[in-house]
């Protein structure tokens, strides 16, 4: 059941166009125009020559690429066993483990960076090792859920059949399991590569001058060196690389991806025998440790001072004094209030635009695919590109909106809208068109029938989407790094600045703020899970599924 059924298409054209107008204008003004400006800035012969011939550029590109590849390989290697254990066995604490992995996935990048900073010893605190560690912690959920989703559906009977035909466990793995899992592994790898290639928050907190990615270099050139042309060139370079990766993965997917109608008919078994039990327990505990230990270290570091543990950093959260009279330039509590306010506005904007867009996509039928693709564009660009584009576009004349209070929420909303659309689209597409027909036979006009039947289905997924958008907006760091002005800094910005002061109360304050942000995000995720239980044909409330675009057996 999809939106191409004629029933919903009977809506009058102007109505559908009206629905689509707002999201289209929003994306055109706040995304397409800035990207065009960015390209215009970058296509400057001087800047192009300077950037492309500079050794540092290629050093940065090389580092970005190889750390993304290394992160992907590491995450896959570390994640494959938890994926197996979680999807093939039933054990106490399984749901809690899944929930923990999901919660860590939704955490802001700055918080994960802070957590890894807290857990690593001094010499490894910043640099490649720290960056890879943070990437693994972050993206474990992707590998476990994406690969696990397919593995879950693999009927045990297939493997059993292969075994009765004489295959050893290794051969079973090679000939039956891996070929079926390959598309899922490829999807997970592509997603993790994309996330780690465009990693910004983690690298800002944990990177050094020699281990920096393209995104951070764009930021550094634009805001620290004032070299916007070179920053624009680097942005375009990154867009090209990202485009190539996305395109090649889409091609590979189309060529090799098979829609396997697998359905496992039995629930996953409990582990049998001491060997299996030890294996499952060990894997579960190790996985939990990988994601929980950094968070515990975060809280511990916020309490640690030169002479024992104290609540000093927490008590002094309102002051960011370096020495008497000298301030750090950011007020942590003010940043907290700013974050909440900005996130509230960003959520409101994202929910409204996303809802209208989802309704328009479903109502427009075939033409809706263009709108869907267009709205997914900001998802493919990085948040840094969005923020940078907004900064250099709206800086003159009647559209000089740099100082407007709404520019930061708009930037955050741009990042969140695709997720809102994704999570509501599933529900809308699964509405029985016969209901609309029934309303029509009872005398309702097309618009009225649509309103009475479709709209009530919207509220629950919208509430879930609002929660996800709030979590994204709270932790958003890339776009905000460009757009924030003195007085409206958000929490991630304050955290990053505090964490940069090695040792001492200021850094402990940074850890304390990161713990607060983590708690707020986790609370939102838990609320999502509790408030929006999946129903038949309902949307998934799982942020990992929404973000990675995978579907589970329960989705329609």
């Amino acid at each position, binding site marked *: 059941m999809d939106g191409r059924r004629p029933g919903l298409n009977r809506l009058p054209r102007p109505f559908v166009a009206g629905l689509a107008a707002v999201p289209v204008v929003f994306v055109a003004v706040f995304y397409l125009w800035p990207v065009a400006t960015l390209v215009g800035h970058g296509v400057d012969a001087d800047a192009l020559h300077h950037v492309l011939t500079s050794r540092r550029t290629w050093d940065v590109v090389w580092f970005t690429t190889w750390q993304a590849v290394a992160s992907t390989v590491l995450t896959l290697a570390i994640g494959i066993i938890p994926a197996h254990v979680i999807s093939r066995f039933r054990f106490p604490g399984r749901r809690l483990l899944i929930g923990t992995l999901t919660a860590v996935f939704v955490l802001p990048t700055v918080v994960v960076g802070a957590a890894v900073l807290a857990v690593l010893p001094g010499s490894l605190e910043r640099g490649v090792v720290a960056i890879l560690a943070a990437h693994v912690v972050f993206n474990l959920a992707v590998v476990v859920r994406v690969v696990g989703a397919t593995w879950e559906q693999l009927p045990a009977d297939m493997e059993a059949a292969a075994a009765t035909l004489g295959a050893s466990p290794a051969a079973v793995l090679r000939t039956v399991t891996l070929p079926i899992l390959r598309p899922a592994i490829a999807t997970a790898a592509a997603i993790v590569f994309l996330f780690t290639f465009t990693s910004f928050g983690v690298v800002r907190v944990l990177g050094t001058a020699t281990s920096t990615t393209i995104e951070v270099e764009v930021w550094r050139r634009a*805001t620290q060196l004032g*070299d916007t042309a070179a920053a624009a060139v680097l942005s375009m370079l990154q867009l090209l690389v990202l485009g190539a990766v996305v395109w090649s993965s889409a091609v590979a997917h189309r060529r090799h991806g098979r829609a396997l109608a697998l359905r496992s008919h039995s629930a996953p078994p409990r582990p049998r025998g001491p060997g299996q039990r030890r294996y499952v327990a060990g894997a579960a505990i190790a996985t939990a440790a990988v994601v929980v230990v950094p968070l515990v270290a975060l809280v511990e570091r916020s309490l640690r001072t030169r002479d024992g543990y104290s609540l000093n950093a927490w008590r002094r959260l309102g002051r960011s004094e*370096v020495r008497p009279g000298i*301030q750090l330039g950011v007020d942590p509590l003010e940043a907290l209030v700013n974050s909440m306010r900005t996130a509230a506005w960003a959520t409101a904007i994202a929910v409204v635009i996303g809802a209208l867009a989802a309704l328009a996509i479903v109502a427009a039928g075939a033409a809706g695919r263009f709108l869907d693709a267009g709205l997914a564009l900001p998802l493919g660009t990085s948040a840094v590109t969005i923020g940078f584009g907004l900064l250099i576009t709206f800086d003159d004349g009647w559209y000089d909106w740099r100082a407007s209070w709404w520019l930061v929420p708009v930037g955050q909303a741009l990042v969140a809208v695709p997720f809102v659309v994704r999570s509501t689209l599933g529900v809308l597409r699964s509405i029985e068109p016969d209901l609309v027909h029934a309303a029509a036979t009872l005398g309702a006009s097309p618009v009225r029938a649509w309103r009475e039947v479709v709209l009530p289905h919207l509220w629950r997924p919208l509430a879930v989407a609002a929660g996800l958008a709030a979590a994204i907006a709270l932790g958003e760091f890339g776009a905000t790094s460009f757009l924030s002005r003195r007085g409206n800094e958000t929490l991630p910005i304050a955290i990053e600045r505090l964490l940069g002061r090695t040792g001492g109360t200021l850094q402990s304050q940074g850890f304390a703020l990161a713990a607060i942000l983590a708690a707020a995000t986790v609370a939102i995720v838990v609320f999502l899970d509790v408030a929006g239980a999946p129903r038949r044909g309902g949307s998934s409330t799982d942020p990992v599924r929404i973000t990675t675009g995978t579907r589970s057996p329960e989705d329609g």
Partner: protein
Amino acid sequence: MTRDVRTRLLAAVIGLCVIAVACGDDADDRVVLVAYDSLPVEDTTLNDALAAFTERTGIDVEIVTAGDTGTMVSKAVLTAGNPEGDVMWGVDNTFLSRAVEGEVFEPYAPQGIEALDPSLVATAPDDMVVPVDVGDVCVNYDVAWFAEHQLDPPTTLDDLLRPEYADLLVVENPATSSPGLAFVLATIAEYGEDGWLDYWRALDANGVEVVDGWNEAYYERFSWAGGGPKPLVVSYGSSPPAEVIFADPPVDAAPTGVMDDTCFRQIEYAGILRGTPRRAAAELLVDFLVSADFQRELPLNLFVYPANGDVELPPEFVEYAVIPEQPRTVDPDDIDAHRAEWIDQWTAAVLG
């Protein structure tokens, strides 16, 4: 939760947010001063002088800081025409051309400009900015640390390359910090455009530490003022007298010394930011910043010499300050033409 309750809750939240946003103040009787982060925002005599200004004119002065000079100037260029404040304090001769090219300022010649040293005023182009203080950026050393380790402190730039001084120096990043850039320019003046990179590579091999700003270098990494591990730091020629004045318990001799072979002359400026909605208040503030009432607080708070010739220096300053005979300078046109390139080359050589 029923749909009804949820809708009402959502509306209430949105309503609260609207109120919260709408209640932001937009008082016109204030002026915002953008400065580097080592300008104190409260509790010092500098702030008392600003409070006196507020009492006299009724205009509140709000100080806004975020990082060292390089970061401040970059932000100003990005927000030119729609600035974050009304007056900028602290752009120096090493970063001035970037700010002027970025059209950051509006011209204004303040009342009382006659009291300023005319040679300094001549360095400010077209009344865009007005000089407010002068200093020398030099490497400072911790007297007690060298005595304890029975080492003679280094005296020349070449000395810093010697193995006995390995891993002892902390410098600031020239991209973000004006003393950092001033020190790099000093090495360019000394070794020329062909030799300075080799000097830095050798310095890097000898374990130099790089941080982002002067605040961090002096108050966190320097062994005397910050309790850190490094007894050598790029700071100001007037840091030693400040250490004497603030010493508790009092001392007879300066606890830090200056390597005057490493000094570079730095002039700092203030100017009105282009596009400010509070031009009249900004003019009054700039007038105050060059007046004797404010300039006399500069030596003890910012460790620099006031540009206003009418101000008498504190006696400790005269006694303990090291005024180098021949501080190095680099032609402002050269700085303008090559600064970005030099910073890039430095980054590649030292941080790359």
